[in-house]
């Protein structure tokens, strides 16, 4: 049966012979539209669908607990190991400066403010994106290329409800605790460096804790951690569900997940911080 030489394909064949530059322009244009409009659009659609799937019963408690435990197992130790030097470096940097000002008794105050407000959400975001997000993406992506996701849909089960929602919530749930962990471990690291190595007094370090910091600082950090967890879970799910092209496709998806999540989390961190300083007045000393 002969096929009439019509339609898009005919255009493509003509394009091959002449008009190479216009084809190239079109390709660049397609790419730009894809990156600027289509991908964010699809991601947003996935977010909405996931939001809707979140309120469908029954909630997958088993999957949630398993995933939460899994995320804890891949993030806790690295988080602590990153948090200790973070607190230490803050003490070293700020401690020296603050001693020159003669305000050594406020070392503790600066450490709390810096760690609770900024450092711990940042460390949490690094770990959530790097460890949890990549693991979730690899898991969902490999399921995608093995056609498990398709099989699930054909069996009448919504993979968003079954796989994505529990993972996303587990990620957010664990991020809350990671944030707390980083705050505590970071402060302990700061205390150790200040008291043991810089000759600060334990009393002054502890007494000045609430000089600058206040309770809303901790709350905004927890809100950040929760948002980071949700974001990392969604990006990982989006990239995983769109993985294609075999094992290399999964690798690419994981790579993109980590990069995109990092960037998004830093932007979110900036936005929430600036919003926080506008909404909550700083504590006067």
């Amino acid at each position, binding site marked *: *049966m002969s*096929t009439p030489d019509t*339609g*898009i*394909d005919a255009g*493509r064949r003509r394009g091959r012979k002449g008009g190479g530059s216009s084809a190239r322009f079109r390709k660049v244009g*397609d790419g730009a539209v894809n990156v600027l409009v289509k991908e964010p659009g699809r991601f947003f659609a996935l977010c909405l669908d996931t939001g809707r799937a979140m309120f469908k019963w029954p909630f997958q408690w088993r999957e949630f607990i398993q995933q939460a435990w899994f995320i804890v197992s891949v993030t806790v130790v690295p988080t602590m190991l990153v948090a200790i030097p973070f607190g230490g470096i803050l003490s070293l940097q700020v401690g020296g400066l603050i001693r020159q000002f003669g305000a050594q008794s406020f070392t503790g105050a600066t450490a709390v403010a810096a760690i609770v407000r900024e450092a711990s959400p940042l460390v949490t975001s690094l770990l959530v994106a790097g460890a949890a997000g990549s693991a979730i993406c690899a898991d969902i992506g*490999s*399921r995608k290329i*093995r*056609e*498990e996701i*398709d*099989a*699930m*849909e*054909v*069996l*009448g*089960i*919504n993979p968003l409800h079954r796989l994505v929602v529990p993972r996303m919530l587990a990620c957010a749930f664990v991020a809350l605790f990671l944030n707390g962990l980083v705050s505590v471990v970071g402060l302990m690291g700061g205390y150790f460096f200040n008291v043991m190595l810089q000759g600060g007094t334990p009393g002054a370090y502890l007494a000045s804790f609430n000089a600058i910091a206040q309770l809303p600082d901790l709350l905004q950090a927890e809100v950040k951690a929760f948002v980071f967890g949700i974001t990392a879970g969604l990006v990982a799910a989006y990239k995983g569900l769109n993985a294609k092209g075999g094992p290399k496709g999964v690798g690419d998806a994981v790579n993109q997940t980590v990069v995109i999540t990092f960037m998004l989390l830093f932007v979110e961190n900036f936005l929430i911080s600036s919003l926080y300083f506008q909404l909550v007045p700083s504590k006067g000393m």
Partner: protein
Amino acid sequence: MGVEIRVEGLTKSFGRQVIWQDVSLTIPAGEISVLLGPSGTGKSVFLKSLVGLLKPDRGHIWIGDRDLPRLPESQLYETRKLFGVLFQDGALFGSMNLFDNIAFPLREHTRKRESEIKNIVLEKMEMVGLLGAEHKLPGEISGGMKKRAGLARALVLDPEILLVDEPDSGLDPVRTAFLNQVFIDLNAQIGATFLIVTHDINTARTLPDNIGLLYQRHLAMFGPREMLLTSDEPVVRQFLNASKVGPIGMSEEKDESELEAEAKLGHDPGKLPPIPPQQMPSNGMLRAGMHAPGAWCAAHGVTPPPGSFVDDLGRNWVEEWPRYVASMTPVGASGGPGAPGGRFPGSPPPGRPGAGAGY
């Protein structure tokens, strides 16, 4: 009894690349159909569109009175319960053992007790010859076993439509033959509508009631097996005879110079090989969807190539058929002409007076 699938003007493209356009066909209820096509013509895409995993750009897919691409999500999931799909590699859930994989749809969609589930799962596993492998993980078994496990999982909810994606890829010829026999037997038992996507010419020639051929972004032909096996259409003829001579080249289509060179050499596609007899159920049943051998040829005045419908034992199935059908009918069963009773599973679809009547 199976459900009819009616596809109208279906078009699908990825970006600027058209996969196929204006595909229209009706897959008759309860019959086995095979979809053929050179690699990369979008056979798997077609299968995925049929079950709503991919959304076509245009066109309708009618499953009963429901138009699949336009169904809201909740109804789509509901409609999918009519389908059983066997994916290329079985698509088993890697974290579950075979038993849990096969029990999964039952646990999700039914309120059966665990003992009932166990019975059903073991029955299906026996059907595909997997008894004893319940506790193996998908990573520990061979490709053939994965396919059979995937088939068992596709069967537990008693689907009305079974879609199979390349059952023979990566399987040895013996296992392929066994799997084909399983399809035939299953069709006889549950009467579901089968659509099998394959590359295997032997499967395509002996297994189905209907054959379709996708070529160059179009459905080249779809119809009864005998129609395609006796067709003069160059593409159909080349493909069903696995020949190098014809319009299909290494890169999907030959260019004009190649075709001219072929014409100059005076290549003749040759005489059509005989039509092999269709595979029969091994369990002594008669399939509701099966047509009498030679019926289409007789009805359309086509002379089948000499030696057609003769099996390995030298029996001519055109002559053998009435006797075979009669042997299926137990004493006292009231069957119309050509409509066998007995273990005949279900009545033939309306509009077709009997299994032997042809088109």
